[in-house]
C-alpha cells in the first residue's frame, strides 16, 4: 500500500500543478516526470514502489478498456465518413510507426551502439 500511496500522491501533485499553473501537459504525465525525478534523486526508494508499479503496469491495458468502449458514444458523428476515417487512422498510424522506427534504429546503428 505504501507504493500505491506514493503513486497517488504524485498523481495528485501533478494534477494540482497543472491546475495552478495551467500547464499544457496532463496531470498524470506531470506526476510521472516528478516521480521519476524523485526516484533519480533517491528521495523515493525503488523497493517502496517497485511491486505496486509492476502490478499497475502489467495490467495497464485494462484501465484503458472503458475509454475505448466510450467510442460507441461518437459512432453517429462519423457514420457518413467511416471509410476515410478508417483509412486515415490505419494508414497514418502505420506511417508514424514505421518512420519513427526506421529513424531511431538507423541512428542507433550509426552510432555503433546496439544497446
Amino acid at each position: 500500500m505504501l507504493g500505491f500511496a506514493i503513486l497517488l500522491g504524485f498523481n495528485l501533485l501533478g494534477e494540482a500543478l497543472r491546475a495552478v499553473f495551467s500547464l499544457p501537459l496532463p496531470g498524470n504525465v506531470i506526476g510521472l516526470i516528478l516521480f521519476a525525478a524523485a526516484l533519480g534523486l533517491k528521495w523515493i526508494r525503488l523497493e517502496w514502489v517497485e511491486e505496486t508499479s509492476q502490478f499497475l503496469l502489467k495490467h495497464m491495458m485494462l484501465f484503458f478498456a472503458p475509454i475505448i468502449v466510450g467510442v460507441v458514444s461518437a459512432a453517429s458523428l462519423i457514420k457518413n465518413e467511416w471509410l476515410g476515417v478508417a483509412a486515415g487512422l490505419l494508414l497514418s498510424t502505420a506511417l508514424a510507426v514505421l518512420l519513427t522506427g526506421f529513424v531511431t534504429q538507423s541512428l542507433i546503428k550509426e552510432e555503433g551502439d546496439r544497446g
Partner: protein
Amino acid sequence: MKEAMTDLLNEPLYGAAATVILYVAASALQRKWSWLHPLFITCAVLIVFVLMTDTYESYQVGGNWLTFFLGPATGALGVPLYKHMQTIRKQLKAIAAGVVVGSVCGLAGVWGILHLFDVSRAVLLSMLPKSVTAPVAIEIARQLGGIPELGAVFTVLTGLIGSMFGPALLKLVGIRHDAAIGTAIGTSSHGIGTARVIRDSEMQGSISSLSMGLAAIVTSMLAIPLYYLL
C-alpha cells in the same frame, strides 16, 4: 427476473466487474493464441453487450472506477524509466529524432489521407493530434477548431490500432532494436501502445513512455503553426 437484471445493470459494480472479468478471460485466451489482443477482445465484447442491453451510461459509472487507475499507472512508468536511465540517456538523440520525424509525418499523413478521401474539415482537425496522449490530444483538437469528443475517440482508436499491429509491423520490416520499437510505439500510439509493449519488455515500455511524453510536447508545439496554416 428481468427487473432484478435491470437493477444489477444499474449498479456501478456491473461496469467494473464485467470489464475485469472479460479482461482476465481475454488474457487467458491470449496465452493460448498469442495473436489475440486482450484489450481488443475485451472492448469488442463490451461494446456489443452495452449496445444490446442499452446500458452505456450505467456501464461507464463502473468503468470510471477502472479509468481512475490510469493516473497512478502512468506515474508507475517512472520506475522502468528510472531503472533504464543509463541506457536511455545514451540513445536519447536517436529517440528524440524518431519522435520528431514520427510526429511530423503522422500529422502530414492524416492531412494527406483525409484529403484523398474528401473527409470534412471538422473531422480532419479532430484527427490531427490523434497520436498523443488523450488529454493533450483533446486539448489540441479543441484549439485547432475540431470536435474534442471526436478527438478523444480517434486518439483511443489510434492507440488500439498501434497496440494491435505496431509491434508486428515493426518486426515484419526488420526493426528489432528495443529503442526503435519503444520510440515508434510511444510516438504513434501513446499510453495504449505503451501498455502493450511493457508487457513484453521493460526497456521498450520505458522508452515508449518517454517518447509518449516527448511526442505530446512536440505535437503541442507543432499545433501552433498548424492553427495558422489550416
